[in-house]
């Protein structure tokens, strides 16, 4: 990838974030935002709190979640050699949702909910892996057992909802499941961000080698690569990133499917280019959509509703585009 492209990819999320930090129900000029960052005394307390304690953590979360989800999608699409794979293919979203719902039912505090959600997301992938380990039939069996585990956990989520108190707990669970970046604090970020950052670094280093996963099993062996290590690293990183995102902001769909395909349209199939591009564009996309979600109306729209409204038509147009990037 050319140096110029890298510069653009690094600047894109930063510029988007700066624009988005100014936008919202309370308009704040870019000059005031900068002054707040540098601790100027001229800024009123209201503006300072809005920028530093409300918008900044939320935008950081948006950047990380967008980058994490689209990168996880990109990884799973490479891992399964299947353009329709998403971060949820191995059941991680189902598990993480169940963990969060259970945490809310049991009256855990937000940190507890986040931890339980993350743990159950990882556990779901272990179940999927264990369910598929009896036969050595490669990725296809993993996909099927992922669907099974996902279905099992969505049934458990329904069970939790059934048991929940209809007045207080049920709305909280339902709202959580819709996905939202609101109410982000630094403590939430401190818990979830390191997982996503480490995942991004490892996958970035593997960006070229992930291309090998598109080869047939025999070719993969003949490449002389440590296949087991490669596959494990990719699955562990992608799963951990997804579980971390979901534990922080609920189920945000579509980002992991749309963004990598958008990048394929521009950069082709080579993961060495696709991976940095997915990180950058995913981060910018998520922050932009979330800003829309919190700005268009007084009552905030759950972000997954917007990603789907933007995502579905976009994906349909991709399927029908002249440059067939998605070969089914």
């Amino acid at each position, binding site marked *: 990838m050319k140096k110029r492209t890298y510069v653009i990819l690094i600047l894109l999320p930063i510029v988007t974030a700066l624009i988005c930090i100014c936008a919202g129900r309370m308009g704040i000029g870019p000059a005031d935002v900068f002054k707040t960052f540098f601790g100027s005394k001229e800024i009123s307390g209201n503006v300072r709190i809005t920028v530093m304690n409300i918008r900044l953590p939320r935008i950081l979360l948006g950047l990380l979640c967008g980058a994490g989800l689209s990168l996880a999608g990109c990884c799973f699409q490479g891992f399964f050699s299947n353009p329709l794979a998403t971060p949820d293919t191995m059941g991680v979203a189902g598990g993480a949702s169940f963990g969060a719902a259970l945490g809310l039912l049991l009256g855990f505090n937000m940190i507890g909910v986040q931890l339980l959600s993350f743990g159950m997301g990882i556990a779901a992938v272990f179940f999927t892996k264990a369910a598929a380990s009896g036969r050595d039939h490669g990725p296809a069996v993993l996909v099927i057992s992922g669907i099974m585990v996902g279905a099992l956990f969505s049934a458990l989520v329904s069970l939790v909802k059934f048991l929940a108190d209809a007045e207080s707990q049920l709305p909280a669970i339902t709202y959580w499941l819709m996905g939202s970046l609101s109410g982000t604090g630094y403590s939430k970020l401190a818990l979830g961000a390191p997982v996503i950052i480490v995942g991004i670094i490892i996958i970035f280093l593997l960006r070229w080698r992930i291309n090998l996963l598109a*080869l047939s099993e025999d070719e993969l062996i003949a490449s*002389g690569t440590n296949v087991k290590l490669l596959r494990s690293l990719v699955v562990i990183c992608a799963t951990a990133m997804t579980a971390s995102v979901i534990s922080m902001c609920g189920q945000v769909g579509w980002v992991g499917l749309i963004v990598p395909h958008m990048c394929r349209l521009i950069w082709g199939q080579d993961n060495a280019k696709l991976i940095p591009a997915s990180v950058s564009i995913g981060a910018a996309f998520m922050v932009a959509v979330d800003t829309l979600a919190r700005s268009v109306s007084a009552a905030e729209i759950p972000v997954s509703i917007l990603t789907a409204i933007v995502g579905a038509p976009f994906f349909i147009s991709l399927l029908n585009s002249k440059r067939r990037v998605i070969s089914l």
Partner: protein
Amino acid sequence: MKLKAENVSFAYPGSSKGAEERFIFKNVNLELDAGKILAILGPNGSGKTTFLRCLMGMLKLSSGACMIDDKPTSAMSTKEFWEKVSYVPQQRMATSSFTVFENVLLGRSGQIAFFGTPRKEDKEAAEKILEELGIIKFRDRRCNSLSGGEFQMVLIAKALVSDPELLILDEPESGLDFRNQLIVLNTMDKLKEKGISCIFNTHYPKHALQKADCSLILGGEKPIFGDTAEVVNAENIEEVFGVRAVINEMQVDGETIKNIIPLYVTGKK
């Protein structure tokens, strides 16, 4: 490089206990010197591909040993083995949506650090091999837009880009037209001149006669190995394939060219 197989046998494990193991092949012995071509012949299901997979360590031998330069392959690390050997799998539909250049570059993965990306010399090696095989014009085409013959050459380029000493090809000329078959077979001749050995599976005894120094015939009572001129003869073909055939020779430009023509199915076998 010298390849040797001693009393190599293979049976799929897991057949019911006490039952006699069903061997796919038994007691294969062969030797291949540097810069020689070996053809493996045999009817469908005689274990040609299985033999190659055993040779490459993808399947575990039931008994016997393969050796490269007198070192058992089972004692070699994956990295060490695949530095010397490259594999061109049976070509099916070209489904890869990588470009030709990206695909060939994947062949360099043994030379590139696990957490690394291709360096300048890797890219140069890929360009060079595309040039040598005459497919540089496809450099930026997507593999799934190529014809079968063109994609086969890309697979060969991908295998050769790592500078192997032994190239193993699984039915490289199957499903190709007249011209592309010749291009693939002639590529092996060029490799031979460079001292690279080739092993190829084939359904065409004619191609063994024309290109291979030695041949291994599987699927008969016992595996047959020897100089192609000696072992690919009418008797062995009839024994293994159950086909009566004649082998004729003709002189073209001072060279003797052999051909084999099947006559009828004998029912022996």
